């Protein structure tokens, strides 16, 4: 059995990881990024199953999960910060056969 992990990263290209337990602001978690163990300081509380940033992101940066764009940051996001409706929206160029506006999720 391998060592107990604290984080799931689904795809190697992803810039967010998912918390496997509730993370409190200020705690350090170990994350395996492309085969290397890194320590990340958690900057804000992250509920179980929620996303947090694996790197510092600028406003407008594409957020990748499953190796694909799932959204875009609407302000700067620090490494270790909770990523959710308060700092991210659907990615640009969201495709909608009926109405492109409908893909925007209210923050």
């Amino acid at each position: 059995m391998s060592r107990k992990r604290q984080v799931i990263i689904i795809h190697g290209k992803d810039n967010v990881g998912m918390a496997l337990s509730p993370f409190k602001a200020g705690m350090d978690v170990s994350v395996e990024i492309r085969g290397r163990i890194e320590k990340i300081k958690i900057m804000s509380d992250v509920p179980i199953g929620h996303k947090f940033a694996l790197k510092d992101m600028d406003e407008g940066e594409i957020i990748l999960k499953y190796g694909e764009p799932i959204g875009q940051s609407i302000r700067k996001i620090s490494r270790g910060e909770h990523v959710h409706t308060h700092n991210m929206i659907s990615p640009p160029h969201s495709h909608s056969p009926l109405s492109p506006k409908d893909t925007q999720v209210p923050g």
Partner: protein
Amino acid sequence: MNFHGYRRPDGKAGTRNHVLVIPSVGCSQGAAMAITTGLRGVVYLPNILGCGQVGEDRGLVKRTLAGFGKNPNVFSVLIVGNGCEQLSPEEIAKEIKPSGKRVEVIVIQEMGGTRKTIAQGKKIIKEMLHEAEKLNREPIPVSELILGTECGGSDFTSGLASNPAVGFACDMLIAEGGTVILSETPELIGAEHLLTKRARTPEIAKQVLEAVAWWEERAMRAGQNIREANPSPGNIAGGITTLEEKSLGCIYKAGTGLLEEFLPYATPPRKRGLVFMDTPAHDIEQLTGMVAGGAQIIVFTTGLGNPLGSPIVPVIKITGNPNTFKKMRDNIDMDVSRILQGKETLKEAGKRIFEEVISVASGKMTRAERLGQRDFCMFKMNVNI
């Protein structure tokens, strides 16, 4: 790599060796059920359609019923008709016969009532069962497997654990030359452009986008804007932020392969690798469509738990929720919740799922099979008249 399956006269291979009774119309369903009562190794389809469907629905019903007969998990077929139905049992038999398997037809009005039909049906089935017993499993390349994928009763563990783990297993099967069916068109909404950029040709991408628009327009006509209703407040509480994220969680269970083909409902793939079938998200109609399209095995992820099975195809239930696994032990085959406890990687769980697929394809019984789940419901578009 091989599994142990049954070779059919047309060269296809099955994971099971069922004798199948198909009522070609709802009127003969009672007789079809009675024929199978008390006999082991024979199953019937609880079909209530076959009369009253017009236009494209008539074609859908015929294709779905014939698809079950043609599925390589079926050894031979008895079709039971009433006699005056619009879709005749002979028409369905004609579709199945090129597969080279034995197909018989009996008709209640011609037999002279239900009792005589049941007696004659049982006689034919006993012969078929005797013939089926003589066939043995043999090594068959896993490249001949068509694996259907499905998720139902999803929760936050589905997108985090069970779906991506199944995705690894699908990628492994495709690497061996096998075929994986992704379906549930309404679940693509929000991530359709992320799937279509993996399409092998622009034509396949166009077919997927047209199918998404069709479902979206149908839902809109019924008063539901699917994009606005998703992700739901429950999804957001569970950590899903955008519709793209939610839909990708569903799509990712079929792995990362290029999309080789678009299939209408209940249509067999002609290509190997990842294919997409246009089905509703309604679990039982989706399951029925993939089986009618020739899937010999299904993997079904569930967060909250789901009992569905198929009359002729093993359905492997996989959950990432440890409480669901404990609570619904008789329904669920595999627990991948150790991913969420940080004790197993997605890749390790994916490998375990792939191995389970090979074991089940080779004869290991699933929970739904042990329970005798024979769920069947066809998709159709319009009213019966």
